[in-house]
């Protein structure tokens, strides 16, 4: 007899509301575009790559590209970092897109967009901020035409970042998706050259300037006009376009210590096969490039000379070296860039090529007297909140107004501008409220979280990879990807309780291994989300059913049971993502972070819903699984459920407990 589990149980009073997310995980808060990292990481752990990708796309128009190159501030904020190592959230973004691609499923079909507003926007520049603005405007029903001066779209993602970090076909796929939404991108269309700025202002309902920082800064030092002195941006453009760089010798000096300098150095290494030395003002510990990029460059044999400032490029008619002076400090007491040198401590670094990578500036030569205006330093006058310039109907986004930053920051800037532009056009658009993060994992709880090493991104062999521009990182892959995703603490997704239903019986206080529920003389005071690990034990024990879990609630598990029964099987298996192995491969599968959240009610209820047999996977006593104490609840629930069956005259063997056969994640990385 089939029975609808949820429908036939009459609810007497309010269930707790799962997903009541007053406090967000720190990864989401730290992300400039507030991607729901916890949710997509959870889907990767479950193996639902297409769902993970669609979650990423809720906020991110360039999922594959960002999944390769993001500066990942989420990982710095990741609470797992306080336990062992942060979750490889960026790498998992790639696992999601690679996985969805491998399965050939949705996530790669752009949605059909209805441009119902009849408004159109001109966007100057097809870099990340322009693309992000176009994407979000499309979702709001506003059509964009992007004007890109380069022959191909992508801005600095194409002309500045190399294929060994971001393959061009990957970038193409992301951009084609945006095109597929009806966003028109006109390449080889430079504003100021091929089309006048004033034409855009008059023909379009709004204009967004997203031109980035396309010009390299140079140094006013002797020798800068020698033929073997190159600037970063044109050099990278040539490399990315596949053009030869005849001035490149065998002994290259790169002036600069930032991420672009790293890319210049690694490119020079690949092209020349020679020696590459980076020279920067900053001391080793304060080099502005990301630590992981510095490590990658050092792996490839690039030398770094720190705390030296460029004094002169020396050589008789050709570059023979760089004269440097000791840099004593880079920043003043206010943290401003104000390098001080010891003018007498000079030395020469020999070399036959110098590439200057000390920063970039924008090219706003297309602007006319009609505005918008720039300030005395040549920077657009800009309102950070409204994204407006001094000219009505002209907006700006990205590095042209924010200064240099990570691509994901440019996305955030473009998305913010999209809302501003939409509102200006009379289209309703809201920015979501700023999320607030939960706190650090408390010390006493940390000790109870099982350590698990972070999965390392596999890379191509160094000696081999520096001979070409093929992608260096090869992707975590499914097994390592899902294992890595399973390390996620699912911050803030744990127990919620209904104050109406709670009877302050203190059961949750007593059973929680982490001390998350707390009570005083007035009864239960709350469940501390910083401590709660979402093991589910309190949910299974609460006698008043006042507790539920914010992610994978009881209702979700019941849906999972129904879905499992709808598959051609009368059996149900409750198992875990972590093990990635099955106890009863023929049964319909209900995947959980741990079977510790399976209550007696859910077990017997599964039979009541029509299951013939219920299998429950559990970790061994020695292994103790994801939550250390969780497996004891699983065992107790099974024992109690079997006793309840026997008492009712039902064969207790219809619920079977089995050890997880193999834990793929437990293999050595």
């Amino acid at each position, binding site marked *: *007899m089939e*029975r609808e589990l949820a429908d*036939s*149980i*009459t609810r*007497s*009073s309010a269930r707790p509301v799962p997903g009541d997310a007053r406090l967000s995980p720190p990864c989401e808060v730290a992300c400039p575009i507030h991607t729901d990292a916890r949710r997509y990481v959870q889907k990767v752990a479950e193996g639902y790559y297409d769902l993970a990708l669609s979650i990423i796309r809720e906020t991110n128009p360039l999922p594959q590209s960002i999944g390769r190159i993001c500066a990942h501030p989420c990982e710095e904020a990741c609470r797992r970092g306080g336990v062992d190592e942060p979750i490889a959230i960026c790498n998992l973004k790639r696992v999601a897109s690679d996985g969805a691609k491998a399965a050939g499923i949705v996530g790669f079909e752009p949605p059909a967009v209805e441009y119902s507003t009849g408004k159109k926007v001109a966007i100057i520049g097809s870099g990340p901020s322009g693309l992000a603005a176009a994407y979000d405007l499309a979702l709001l029903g506003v059509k964009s035409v992007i004007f890109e001066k380069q022959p191909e779209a992508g801005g600095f993602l194409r002309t500045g970042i190399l294929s060994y970090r971001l393959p061009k076909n990957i970038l193409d796929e992301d951009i084609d998706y945006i095109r597929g939404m009806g966003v028109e991108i006109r390449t080889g269309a430079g504003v100021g050259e091929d089309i006048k700025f004033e034409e855009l202002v008059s023909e379009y309902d709004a204009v967004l300037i997203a031109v980035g920082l396309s010009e390299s800064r140079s140094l006013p030092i002797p020798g800068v006009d020698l033929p073997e002195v190159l600037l970063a941006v044109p050099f990278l453009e040539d490399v990315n376009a596949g053009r030869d760089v005849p001035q490149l010798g065998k002994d290259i000096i790169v002036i600069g210590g930032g991420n672009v300098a790293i890319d210049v150095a690694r490119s020079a290494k690949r092209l020349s096969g020679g020696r590459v030395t980076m020279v920067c003002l900053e001391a080793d510990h304060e080099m502005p490039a990301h630590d992981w990029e510095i490590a990658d460059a050092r792996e490839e044999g690039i030398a770094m000379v720190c705390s030296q400032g460029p004094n002169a490029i020396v050589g008789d008619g050709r570059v023979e070296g760089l004269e440097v002076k000791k840099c004593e400090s880079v920043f003043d007491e206010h943290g401003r860039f104000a390098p001080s040198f010891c003018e007498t401590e000079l030395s020469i670094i020999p070399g036959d090529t110098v590439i200057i990578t000390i920063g970039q500036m924008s090219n706003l030569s297309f602007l006319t007297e009609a505005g918008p205006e720039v300030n005395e330093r040549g920077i657009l006058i800009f309102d950070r909140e409204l994204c407006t310039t001094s000219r009505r109907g002209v907006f700006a986004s990205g590095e042209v107004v924010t200064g240099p930053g990570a691509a994901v920051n440019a996305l955030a800037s473009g998305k913010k501008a999209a809302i501003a532009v939409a509102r200006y056009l009379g289209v309703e658009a809201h920015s979501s409220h700023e999320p607030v993060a939960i706190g650090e994992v408390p010390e006493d709880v940390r000790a109870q979280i099982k350590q698990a090493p972070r999965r390392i991104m596999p890379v191509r062999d160094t000696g081999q990879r520096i001979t070409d521009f093929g992608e260096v990182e090869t992707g975590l892959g499914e097994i390592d990807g899902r294992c890595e995703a399973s390390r996620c603490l699912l911050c803030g997704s744990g127990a919620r309780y209904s104050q109406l*239903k709670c*009877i302050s*019986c203190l*059961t949750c206080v*007593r*059973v929680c291994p982490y001390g998350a529920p707390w009570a005083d003389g007035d009864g239960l005071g709350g469940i501390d989300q910083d401590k709660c690990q979402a093991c589910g034990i309190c949910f299974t024990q*609460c*006698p*008043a*059913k006042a507790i539920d879990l914010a992610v994978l609630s009881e209702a979700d598990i019941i849906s999972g049971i129904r879905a499992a029964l709808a598959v051609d099987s009368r059996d149900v298996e409750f198992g875990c993502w972590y093990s990635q192995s099955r106890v009863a491969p023929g049964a319909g599968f209900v995947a959980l972070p741990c079977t510790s959240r399976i*209550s*007696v*009610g859910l077990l*017997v*209820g599964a*039979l*009541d819903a029509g299951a013939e047999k219920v299998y429950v996977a559990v970790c061994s006593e020695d292994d103790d699984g994801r939550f250390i104490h969780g497996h004891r609840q699983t065992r107790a629930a099974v024992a109690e459920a079997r006793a*309840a*069956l026997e*008492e*009712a*005259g*039902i064969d207790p063997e219809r619920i079977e407990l089995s050890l997880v056969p193999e834990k793929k994640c437990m293999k050595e990385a």
Partner: protein
Amino acid sequence: MIAAEKKPFEQIKAVTDQFEKVLVVGCNTCVAVCLTGGEKEAELLTAQLRLQREKDSIKGSVETVTVLRQCENEYVDAIAAQIDGSDLVLSMACSIGPQLIAERFPKVRVAPAMNTNMLAVVKKHHVWSEYCVACGDCGIFNTGGICPIARCAKQLLNGPCGGSQGGHCEISAEVPCVWQLIYDKLATFGLEGNLGRIGGPKNWSKSNSGGPRTMKKEGFEP
């Protein structure tokens, strides 16, 4: 709290098998605190009954609903619709619950799913002990805050019997001799001598042996 235990399933089913539309009503106060009759247990019993009735081909349905308490009219009246739609109300409250339901809903049959057994303290998680028998005339100040009526197997009022051995009651090594506890407690205050004092006879008419009790209070009436 009032502690109650679920009746053996055999006994429950002997009653429920006779009825077509059964309503299992949970109670989220005392019996939830002692983990036997709250919403969680009500849902479990409901699932057990359904599975058993399917196996035994008993026609009908088993539904469930839980209210905060079954000892108050308003809470019981709140589920009037569900009760009116049933042939049998199986209450998981202490015996007060089914009795009140039977009173408020005279046309429906009512059965208890529980045996109400004691007024209990929570000794620790999953262990409850009888500490009070509601004698109506509490004298525990004189016995160091410990009740010899609830906790002595013989309800002795004058001290231990000869069966008190090594600090525990002759009925079981797990039951402490309450008079030993009382003596030791008074001794910590140097008051063991008080046990020699003659007190008056206990007024047992205030207990249930004096007849069923009703408590009243003066004050604002709505």
